[in-house]
């Protein structure tokens, strides 16, 4: 959809063109960052329709807040912050809609292990990671997603989540411990 002329274009140029109403420039921004957003949103709320909707909302919110983007941080960090905030809001909404106890969740999410077919095993791994992440508390889930699915270091995670580095480190350590316990039960 995005014109090939924008493929190698700098983010700043794309932002200015988008602000002038060039939809192809904004398409390129979406194409450039949609997988990053997908990893965060789907990693935090699962691979479902709600995640697709949140993903769309992220870019719509980005479009309407482009004027406020001063370029102090990277565009990817800015988009990521929007993604994390909207995803956390969605998690709150899901929680309000109805919750079950932690152990009930583990029972319902228990993964069946099948070995043999490579594709089946890959799907199984994805399912396992997704379920383990979803059983983490949201504040631990976000740091774990940044580390496990985005491959961010502590500084990048801190910038994206707007947290001090020390907090990120302690959350990572807690998240690691919680995830280990969850995985032992799966």
């Amino acid at each position, binding site marked *: 959809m995005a014109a090939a002329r924008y493929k190698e274009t700098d983010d700043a140029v794309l932002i200015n063109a988008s602000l002038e109403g060039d939809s192809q420039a904004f*398409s390129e921004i979406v194409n450039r960052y*949609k997988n990053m957003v997908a990893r965060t949103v789907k990693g935090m709320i699962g691979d479902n329709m709600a995640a697709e909707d949140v993903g769309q909302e992220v870019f719509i919110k980005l*479009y309407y807040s482009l004027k406020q983007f001063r370029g102090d941080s990277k565009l990817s960090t800015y988009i990521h912050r929007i993604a994390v905030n909207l995803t956390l809001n969605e998690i709150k909404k899901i929680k309000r809609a109805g919750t079950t106890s932690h152990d009930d969740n583990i029972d319902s999410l228990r993964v069946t*292990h099948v070995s043999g077919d490579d594709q089946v095993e890959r799907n199984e791994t*994805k399912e396992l990671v997704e379920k383990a992440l979803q059983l983490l508390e949201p504040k631990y889930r976000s740091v774990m997603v940044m*580390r496990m699915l985005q491959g961010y270091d502590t500084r990048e995670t801190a910038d994206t989540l707007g947290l001090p580095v020390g907090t990120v480190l302690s959350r990572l350590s807690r998240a690691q411990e919680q*995830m280990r316990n969850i995985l032992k039960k799966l």
Partner: protein
Amino acid sequence: MKPEDLINIIDEAPGLGKSPGYIREKLRSEGVEYSFGSEFTSKVIRRIYGGAIIVNRQMELVRSLNSVFYRVAFAGVAAIILLLISIFVMEGSLTFNSLVGISESYDETLIGLLTDH
């Protein structure tokens, strides 16, 4: 991958000297990758620019209504001024009587009519 394999990967990585991308690469090679549907970008663009088109149409309507209002208002003011000038020319004044079309002499005629003269 079994849960214990994932535990091993996690234990090896965060803050323990491995590069930050270690778990990601490991999981990617195991097929853990996320993406949105193929129509994702076009849906986003449709939602943004589709809405913008509606807003633009509303703005155009307001603008065209504004210009119609000004045209009608100017034409009305011009008509009133022309009417006042023509009344002044015909009646020689702009009194209330001349504005409503009742001249002094007409008054008497009216009284005459009412009193049967």
